[in-house]
């Protein structure tokens, strides 16, 4: 496994080079824009997140204030305001105010390997592994600005390492992922879901399938976290890039697709 420190930028038609992180890392939570971004919790080893926070100005990444503790999972509406919610050791939230991280309320469920969207005052977290229950989960929870509440479970089979995007508690999509029949165990059979589902604030509904990625079931898992735009921005759309699919029972393959979803 080779990690990247580099960034890539997409302009709607082609990819180009961006700045480099302080270290090659696996990453997940990032918020902001292409020219004003905040990255937090990147991991330089196999699975452990770090407390590292970095900012991007469109050209250069620079170190910022560390998080209170290291976890995965988070969202935010800008580089100046982000929320780091649940996952790993506990369900305690951390809030970023453009200066430092502080601890906040706790999530209802401590979820990992799912998807998140929204802001520090209106967010959603969807599945797919319940740390507290040590099991796959389609659980969903929303933040109303003060407290988290359990919501309607997502109607997919438990599928970890999918991607999601949206604007928070009233609109969110979840795509792809892979089924695991036992926690952290070998996935058998290997199914990468092609299905996309949408939350409209009150229920989940099946949306248009993503393009067929080939392999055993046409779906992808563990690709780049799908980006989305904040609702009402006037430019709604999301991107899914790369990911893996399964081409046989125990063989997964690297993919390089860039897909755009609009609505």
């Amino acid at each position: 496994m080779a990690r990247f420190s580099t960034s890539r930028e997409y302009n709607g038609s082609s990819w180009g080079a961006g700045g480099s992180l302080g270290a090659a890392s696996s990453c997940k939570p990032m918020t902001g824009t292409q020219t004003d971004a905040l990255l937090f919790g990147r991991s330089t080893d196999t699975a452990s997140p770090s407390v590292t926070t970095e900012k991007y100005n469109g050209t250069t990444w620079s170190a910022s204030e560390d998080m209170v503790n290291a976890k995965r999972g988070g969202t935010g509406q800008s580089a100046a305001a982000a929320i780091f919610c649940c996952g790993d050791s506990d369900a305690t939230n951390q809030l970023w105010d453009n200066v430092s991280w502080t601890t906040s309320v706790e999530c209802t469920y401590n979820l990992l390997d799912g998807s998140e969207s929204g802001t520090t005052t209106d967010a959603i977290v969807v599945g797919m592994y319940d740390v507290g229950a040590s099991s796959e989960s389609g659980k969903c929870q929303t933040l109303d600005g003060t407290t988290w509440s359990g919501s309607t479970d997502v109607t997919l089979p438990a599928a970890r390492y999918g991607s999601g995007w949206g604007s928070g508690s009233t609109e969110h999509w979840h795509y792809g992922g892979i089924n695991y029949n036992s926690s952290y165990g070998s996935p058998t059979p290997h199914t990468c879901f092609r299905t996309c589902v949408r939350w409209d604030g009150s229920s989940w509904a099946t949306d248009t399938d993503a393009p067929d990625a080939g392999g055993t079931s046409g779906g992808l898992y563990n690709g780049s976290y799908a980006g989305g735009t904040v609702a009402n921005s006037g430019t709604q759309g999301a991107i899914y890039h790369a990911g893996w699919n399964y081409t046989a029972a125990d063989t997964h393959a690297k993919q390089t697709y860039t897909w755009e979803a609009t609505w």
Partner: protein
Amino acid sequence: MANEIEKVNSIALTSIESVNDKTDANIQAFNGLEFAGYGGLTWATGGTDTHRSSAATTGTIAAFLMTGGYT
């Protein structure tokens, strides 16, 4: 949800001819939310680039940022 609304402040929708002097034919959205119902996602291919798993991303289709990850 709009189709479930029958009245606003006790006034039947069919009796409302305009809002701030705009007739219904000229009102496309409230607070950026269009009246047209959600029609589902449309997917398109946007080319290819280096495979990366567990990368972080943010931005829009026209200005998208991806960093880190592994291959």
